[in-house]
């Protein structure tokens, strides 16, 4: 497939724009010199990924990504960042000074995966773009074929919930415990 035919497809324009934006946002996530900016760029990157999901007509997952990431994860991270006293302005110590090796590793990884993908799939085109996958199908899969993983994930979440509370909880001083009256 030549580039001309590729770019003549409107969905590929959208892909190019959104993909580039996502990459840019992702790159800024790992290079931004302000923690909050990095987190906000992650919002952008996640939004980009969600848009790509929409392109792939995976509507439910796209909005699930937005709901979970924008609605919860990022808020939580920003919360954490602000609790750990994020200053406004530039902080040069956010990244380590040894960046050569990670850079080489990242490029090598990218080259490897790209090479493998091209080798394996060539220009195989995606089959179904159009009707969004119905949420019914997804839900039915979750409670039939994948019901065990589904339950396991539920337990993992519960464990994470309890574990998170336990870890982050500040131990009360004896005085405070007394004030709470025994069980606390």
């Amino acid at each position, binding site marked *: 497939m030549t580039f001309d035919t590729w770019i003549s497809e409107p969905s590929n324009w959208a892909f190019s724009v959104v993909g580039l934006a996502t990459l840019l946002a992702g790159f800024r996530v790992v290079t931004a010199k302000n923690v909050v900016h990095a987190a906000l760029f992650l919002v952008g990157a996640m939004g980009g990924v969600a848009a790509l999901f929409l392109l792939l007509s995976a509507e439910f997952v796209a909005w699930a990504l937005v*709901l979970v990431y924008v*609605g919860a994860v990022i808020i939580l991270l*920003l919360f954490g960042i602000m609790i750990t006293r994020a200053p*406004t302005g530039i902080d040069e110590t956010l990244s380590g000074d040894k960046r050569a090796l990670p850079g080489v590793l990242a490029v090598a990884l990218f080259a490897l995966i790209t090479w493998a993908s091209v080798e394996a799939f060539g220009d195989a085109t995606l089959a179904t773009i159009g009707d969004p996958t119905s949420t019914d199908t997804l839900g039915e899969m979750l409670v039939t074929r994948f019901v065990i993983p589904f339950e396991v994930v539920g337990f993992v979440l519960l464990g994470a919930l309890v574990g998170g509370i336990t870890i982050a909880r500040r131990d009360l001083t004896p005085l405070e415990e007394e004030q709470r009256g025994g069980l606390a």
Partner: protein
Amino acid sequence: MIADLLSNFWVALVAKLLLVALAIPLIGMVVGFGEMKLSAKMQARVGPYFAGGRWGWAQLLADGIKFFQKEDLIPRDADKPVFKFAPVVVMMGTVALFVVIPWGPGLIFRDLSVGIFYALAISSLTTVGVLMAGWSSANKYSLIGGLRAAGQMIAYELPLVFSALAVVIMAGTMSMQGIVEAQIEAGYPFVILQIVGFVIFVIASLAELSRIPFDLPIAESELVMGYLTEYSGFRFLFFFLAEFANMFSMSAIAVTLFLGGWYLPGIPADALEYLGPVILVVKSLILVFAMIWFRWAFPRVRQDQLQSLAWKWLIPISLANVILTGVFKVVL
């Protein structure tokens, strides 16, 4: 003629953009004006009186113009890009919410198959904006306000989702139009069986909107103006409008989920084409009125009360409601 024009993608796009650009300030102003007058009434005051002649109807418009001509102040230590972008993000969340509100049969910007899910997902964007605003102002009141907003939002997101989930179970679809149609088909608005869910939804949306009694993020008496402290001029106006527009859109979603949306029994189907939006707006405004009413009826809660209400009461109750609804659905 117009239909032909609208069938063109670009024309339709421009028309829709224009519509949104007009509708949101308009709705914001209606709600804002309502808040002014109603608050005045409830406190036995007069409220705006002169602007525009009768009832001071142009007061908010005048306010808006005043905001536009004010100097746009940005604190020296503020994180400028984030500071500037925050109102936009808030406004984005507000606008995006209007996409899935069904105004009438077939009258909807985009009837997503995951409509309500989309609405819940996108409404959290507002909180990111608030958090951005709070942090970037480089002001401790703002930061505390932003953090409070985030904590509040995380706590009340779950009851909101759960109570909507119960409706989704009842309707068997997440499409907003589908939910309205399910209520028409059932012959009763879901509020009858989902009264618990409705109450929780309203409480949780009050918290999401930071309205009294859950207005801790701005709490004038504690935090000056919370995350809005450092904003002025048209940026402040953005927040202001977004708040009022959000009040309306959350009410509209609540109406769609629980009160039958644009439908009213006894009105012929073809009349609904035109009366649908009116019915929806009237129903929503009733809810908006209730929200304004609450503002003068309840005192502000404390932070710990706010959190324990969500985690110890609303979430368990709404979970139980979901389970009950599921059982109900399966049994019938």
